[in-house]
């Protein structure tokens, strides 16, 4: 028996797991790797930075608007004389966490709504899709601002607000995937072996619908970070935590005199969102090989 197994293994190359192939395709994609390395550096900075550079971002340490590189302040100081490097390092954690948890929340809402409306036809589908369309036509930033303005500017509320306004794209993707997969024969086979509807949605259909949802979720982390920055810029932010958008918002009146205080956190947001987009594109190419542009 063992001999035969070895024989099989050497003569016929066994097809490899699609996940392995996707991983290799991802690692061969230069821009995706650049994005991944950048994001890793940013995450490292966010979690190790405050330990290595323990300056309090809320403390006045020097004269306002010290330009970068002077008086020992690598990135200078803001309009209240607070260290911008400390703000950047401490703000990274908040920015990334808000981005990731808001994206996670909107994926959860979107997948639930999309899967239910894709699987069940009739009333459930109609009702859920009308709700989705309702959320889709709302001006998202405005709706976000209304939620935060009404219910307070705690971080939880900001995450909730971003999640609630941005799930419609995921819902549509999930719905179309579920509608495609539910017609496949293995779903009928699962029903023929006695699976319940919820088992079929959770364990048969959704695992097969994940690739495009993963891509969308990655890209959504980027857009959630932008959302958070927009809200903070408008002053709708938790005053007790630093985030990049908040630094920009606080210094925006002085943009003409000391543009660095706005530019530096702006660049940080730009680089982070770019890195996430590169990763998202790389994942898209790796997970949906049929859609790849040639």
């Amino acid at each position: 028996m063992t001999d035969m197994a070895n024989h099989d293994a050497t003569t016929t190359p066994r097809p490899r797991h699609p996940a392995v192939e996707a991983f290799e395709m991802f690692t061969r994609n230069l821009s995706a790797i650049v994005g991944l390395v950048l994001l890793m550096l940013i995450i490292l900075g966010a979690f190790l930075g405050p330990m290595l550079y323990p300056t309090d971002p809320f403390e006045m340490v020097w004269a306002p608007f010290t330009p970068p590189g002077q008086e020992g302040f690598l990135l200078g100081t803001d309009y209240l004389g607070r260290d911008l490097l400390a703000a950047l390092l401490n703000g990274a954690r908040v920015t990334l966490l808000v981005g990731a948890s808001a994206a996670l929340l909107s994926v959860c809402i979107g997948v639930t709504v999309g899967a239910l409306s894709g699987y069940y036809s009739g009333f459930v589908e109609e009702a859920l899709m009308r709700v989705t369309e309702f959320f889709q036509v709302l001006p998202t930033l405005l709706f976000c601002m209304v939620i935060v303005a009404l219910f307070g500017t705690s971080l939880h509320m900001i995450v909730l607000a971003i999640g609630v306004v941005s799930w419609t794209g995921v819902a549509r993707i999930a719905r179309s995937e579920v509608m495609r997969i539910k017609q496949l024969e293995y779903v009928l086979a699962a029903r023929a072996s006695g699976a319940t509807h919820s088992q079929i949605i959770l364990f048969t259909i959704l695992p097969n619908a994940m690739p495009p949802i993963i891509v969308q979720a990655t890209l959504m982390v980027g857009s959630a970070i932008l959302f958070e920055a927009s809200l903070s810029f408008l002053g709708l932010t938790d005053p007790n935590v630093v985030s990049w958008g908040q630094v920009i918002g606080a210094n925006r009146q002085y943009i003409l005199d000391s543009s660095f205080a706005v530019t530096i956190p702006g660049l940080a947001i730009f680089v982070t969102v770019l890195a996430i987009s590169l990763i998202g594109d790389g994942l898209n190419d790796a997970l949906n090989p049929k859609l790849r542009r040639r």
Partner: protein
Amino acid sequence: MTDPVLRIENLTVEIRTRTGVAPVIDDLSFRVDTGRTLALVGESGCGKSMTALAIMGLLPRGIGRIVRGSILLGAEDLATTSPARMRSIRGNEIGMIFQEPMTSLNPVYSVGEQISEVLRAHQGMGRKAAWSMAIELLDAVHIPNPSLRVSDYPFQMSGGQRQRVMIAIALACRPRVLIADEPTTALDVTVQAQIFDLLKDLQRDTGTAIILITHDMGAVTEMADEMIVMYAGRMAEAGPVEAVISRPRHPYTRGLISCVPHLGAIVDDDRPLLTEIPGIVPGLGQFGQDRCLFASRCELSDSHCRSARPAAYAITDGHSAACWQAGGAA
């Protein structure tokens, strides 16, 4: 005769189409006994697969429904049983295998997980017991190195192997009835014969009654004991395979048989290389009319055929044909 394990009586299934309601299965009755194989034969659109779905309780919701008749599994009528009870019957007491082995296994789970899932759901087995049972089942369906292949994914198997896995899943709980919906249509001819041999072996061991849905007369003669020829949702001819194949009484059955190429047969004017049945199966809109639905394609048809639905005419014990001409055309 033993007690039938599955008895279908006067089953009528209607489906809703854009133009109205059509009886896609029209007053169909048959029985299957333990350890026997019944073949449902006919062209595409004759209601063969609908019969299977009706038995499984998987008619498309809101579109198809059973309007009359009963599906008796033992003493239980599946046509009226609750959805929860139906779920515990599916996969446990009635198993099903499908036409397309390439797509009927879930690509994200290993075959072992898919086999043990059924065992855990219906037999209450633990994870470990179900896994080792899955290995035994793979061995039973002649997959080499079952203890290694059990953790393979469907894409690592050939079409024939996947169909064997499907059979292992369908027979995992030793169901009383196995519905095989064109199980070999998508496979190579050599693999077809292997799958049929396997099904026959397993049937001998488990006593499962098999309903074989096919349009392949070769498969019928190889596998089945009894056969039903279906046309436009109705029974055209039914009986023991031997009798129906050698003495077909319904013109449609004769047409189907003459469509099969015979290797080595003498080809002359009486028996051309291949014959065909002219025309096509009528559209759903014409189903259920009170006439012989085959009349428009039949060379024997007369005004009687076009004005009244033929009743089943018993020829010998167990052999019957629904044709006005069957009595005289012997």
